[in-house]
C-alpha cells in the first residue's frame, strides 16, 4: 500500500475518531455527574442535526446566502435547542428516577431515544428519508497522489478537536468545571459547599447535549446527509468508546473514540476476511479489551470522575 493511501486511511480514521470522541465525551460527562448512562444521546445528536438542517432551510428561506452566516446560525440554534433538550431530559426523566434502580434510567432514556427517532421519522416532513445536508464549508481539496484532503474535512476535524479541548478546559480550569467535578466526586459534600446541585446537573446535561449537537452538525457537514436513524449506531459506538476508554474520564473518551475508529478502519481494510466483518472485529476487540482491562484503558480509580 502506498503512503498516499495510508494517509487517506489515517485522515478518514481521524475524522471518524473525532466524531466518536465528541459523542463519548457526552456519555462521560453524564456518567461523571450523575452516575447515569443517558442512552438517548445518539438520538439527541440526530435532533441536533435535524434542528441544524431546519435552521438552514429557514435561513435560506429568508434570503441569506452567505454560507458562513448560515453556518453560525445553524450551530447556534442547533446547539441551543439541543442543550435545552438535554437539560429538560435531565430535569424530567433522569433526576426523578435517581432513587430508582440505575438501570431504569438507562431504559427510560433508551425509550426516549426511540420516541425521538420515531417522532422525527413520523412528523418531520418526509422524515423517513435521508435529507441532503448543505455543504457550508469550502470544498477545495489537496491532491497528493492517491491522497486527497479536503478543506472541509480539515476544518471539521480542527473544530471538533477544538471543542474537545475547550470542554476539557471548561472542566479543569473554570469555576463551573470545579463545581461539575465536585458534584461528580461527592454529590452531598458538593451541596454542602453551597453548590446548586440541580443546576449543575442540568448545566452538565446541557453541555453534553450541546456537544452532541455539534457532533451531529459535523456529521451532517461531512457526510452531507442526515437521517432519522443516524444516532442509533453513533450512540452505541460513543458509549462503547467511553467505556473502553474508562468512564468518567475525558481523556478516556477521546482515546476510546479514536481507538474504535481505528479498529473499524483496520477491520475494513487490513484484515484477511471480508470487510463486512469489520464491526464483528471491532466489537470483538472491545470484548477482549474489557476482559483485559475491566474498568477501561484509563482505569477509573476509586472515585475518579470527569
Amino acid at each position: 500500500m502506498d503512503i498516499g493511501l495510508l494517509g487517506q486511511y489515517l485522515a478518514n480514521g481521524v475524522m471518524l475518531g473525532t466524531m466518536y470522541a465528541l459523542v463519548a465525551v457526552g456519555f462521560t460527562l453524564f456518567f461523571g455527574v450523575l452516575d447515569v448512562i443517558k442512552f438517548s444521546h445518539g438520538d439527541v445528536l440526530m435532533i441536533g442535526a435535524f434542528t441544524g438542517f431546519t435552521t438552514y432551510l429557514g435561513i435560506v428561506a429568508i434570503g441569506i446566502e452567505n454560507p458562513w452566516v448560515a453556518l453560525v446560525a445553524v450551530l447556534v440554534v442547533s446547539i441551543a435547542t439541543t442543550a435545552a433538550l438535554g437539560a429538560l431530559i435531565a430535569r424530567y426523566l433522569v433526576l426523578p428516577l435517581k432513587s430508582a434502580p440505575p438501570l431504569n434510567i438507562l431504559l427510560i432514556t433508551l425509550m426516549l431515544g426511540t420516541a425521538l427517532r420515531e417522532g422525527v421519522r413520523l412528523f418531520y416532513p418526509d422524515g423517513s428519508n435521508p435529507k441532503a445536508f448543505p455543504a457550508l464549508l469550502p470544498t477545495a481539496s489537496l491532491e497528493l497522489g492517491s491522497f486527497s484532503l479536503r478543506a472541509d474535512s480539515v476544518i471539521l476535524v480542527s473544530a471538533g478537536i477544538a471543542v474537545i479541548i475547550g470542554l476539557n478546559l471548561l472542566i479543569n480550569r473554570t469555576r463551573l468545571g470545579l463545581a461539575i467535578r465536585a458534584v461528580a466526586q461527592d454529590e452531598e459534600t458538593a451541596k454542602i459547599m453551597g453548590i446548586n446541585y440541580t443546576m449543575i446537573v442540568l448545566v452538565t446535561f446541557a453541555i453534553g447535549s450541546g456537544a452532541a449537537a455539534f457532533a451531529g452538525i459535523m456529521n451532517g457537514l461531512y457526510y452531507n446527509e442526515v437521517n432519522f436513524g443516524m444516532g442509533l449506531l453513533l450512540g452505541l459506538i460513543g458509549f462503547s468508546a467511553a467505556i473502553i476508554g474508562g468512564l468518567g474520564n475525558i481523556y478516556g473518551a477521546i482515546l476510546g473514540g479514536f481507538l474504535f475508529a481505528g479498529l473499524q478502519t483496520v477491520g475494513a481494510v487490513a484484515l484477511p476476511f471480508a470487510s463486512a466483518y469489520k464491526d464483528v472485529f471491532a466489537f470483538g476487540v472491545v470484548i477482549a479489551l474489557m476482559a483485559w482491562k475491566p474498568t477501561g484503558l484509563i482505569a477509573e480509580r476509586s472515585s475518579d470522575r470527569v
Partner: protein
Amino acid sequence: MKDDVMKTPIPVSLPPLATGLIAVAACAIFGWLFLLAESEVAVLGLVLLAVLAGWGAQKTGLSATLGTAMHQHSGAMNGAIVASLLAVIALLGTEHFPLLMLSTMLLYLVAALGLNVQFGLTGMVNFAGAAFFGIGAYTSAVLTTHTAVPPLLILLAGGLIAALIGALLIVPVVRTAGHYSAVVTIAFGVLFKTFLEVNEVLGGPQGLMVGSMNVFGWDFNNGPVLMGHEMSFYVNYALLSSGLAILAFALTRRLERSWLGLALDSVRLDETASACFGINVVRAKVLAFTYGNILAGIAGALYGMMISFIAPNSFTFSDSLLMVSIVLLGGLGSLWGSALAAVIVVLVPEKLQILQEYRFLLFSVLVIAMLLFRPQGLLPRGVRSYFPGGRAQR
C-alpha cells in the same frame, strides 16, 4: 398477568384465599378477552379497565390482600394460576393467533426469568438476551434440519449451546461491573447479529427454516383433535410453553429462596462483603450468568420451532432491549413482575397494530410513563425471605 391486574371491588371481608381465587379467575378472563380483542375500542377499553383495576386494587388494599393470599395459600394460588392458564388455552382452542401470542409471551417470560436471575438477583447486566435467545433458535434450526436429534433434546441443546457460547463472555463479564459489563454484552449482541448476517453457513441474512416440535411421534404442527374438534396446532406450543414457563418459574423461585439465591443477592448488594462471608463471588456470577443463558437458549429453541423461520433480524439489539424492559418494568428481581411485564411488552405493541406506524412511538411513551410513575417497577420485589427447603410463602 396476575396479582395486580385486578378489577371488581371485592368486599374486604372475604377471606384472602377466596379473594385471591376470584382475582386469578378475573385475570384469566381478562387475559382471554384481551388476547381475543381486535377492535380499537375493545383494546382501549380493556387497557383502561386494567389500569383502573390496578389503581383500584392499590387504593382498596386489594393488592395487599392478594399478597396475603399468595403468602398464606401459595399452593392453592399457584394451582389456581396454572389451572386458569390451562383454561385460557382450552378456551382459545381454535384461535391460532391469540395462542401464538400467548406462547410467545410465555417464552419471552422464560427468557426474562433467566435475565432476572442475572439482573435482579446477582446484579449482572445482560444486554444480549436476544442473542442467547437467538443461539437457541439457531441451534434448533440446525439440529432439526440436519440431524435426527429428538426435538425435546434439542430444547436442552439450545440451552446448552447458549451457555457454552456465553462461557466465552464469562471472563469479561465476571471481571467487569455495571456499565462496563453492559458494554460487553451490547458488543456481543451487535457482534452476534452482524456475524449471522455476514456469514453464509447459517443462512446469512436470509435466515433458516426450523423444523417443528415433535414429541414421540406427535407432530406439533398438526392440530390436536379434542372430542372431535380440531384445535389450533398452536395449542401444542402453548401447552409446551406453559410447561416450560411453569418449570422455569418454579425453578427460579426455588433458586431465589435457596441459600444460593441468598448468595446471589449478597453478591449484588456488596461483592466485597460477600467475599468476606466466604461466598465465592466468581462462582456465583458464573452460575447466574449461565443459568440465565440456559433459560434464554431453551426458550429461543422452542420459539424457533414455533415460528418455523428465523433470521438475524429477529435477534437484534432492540429485541434484547425488549427483554430488558420486561425485567425492569416488572421490577428487578420480581418474578411475578416479569410475568406481568411480559404481557405488556409482548402484547401491547401487537395490540397497537391498529395504530400502524405510530405504535412504537406510543409504546415508548407508555414505557416512559410507567417508569416515571412506578420507578421500582410494576410489582416491586418484596423483602427477600429465605425458607429452608424453598417452600412457598412470601
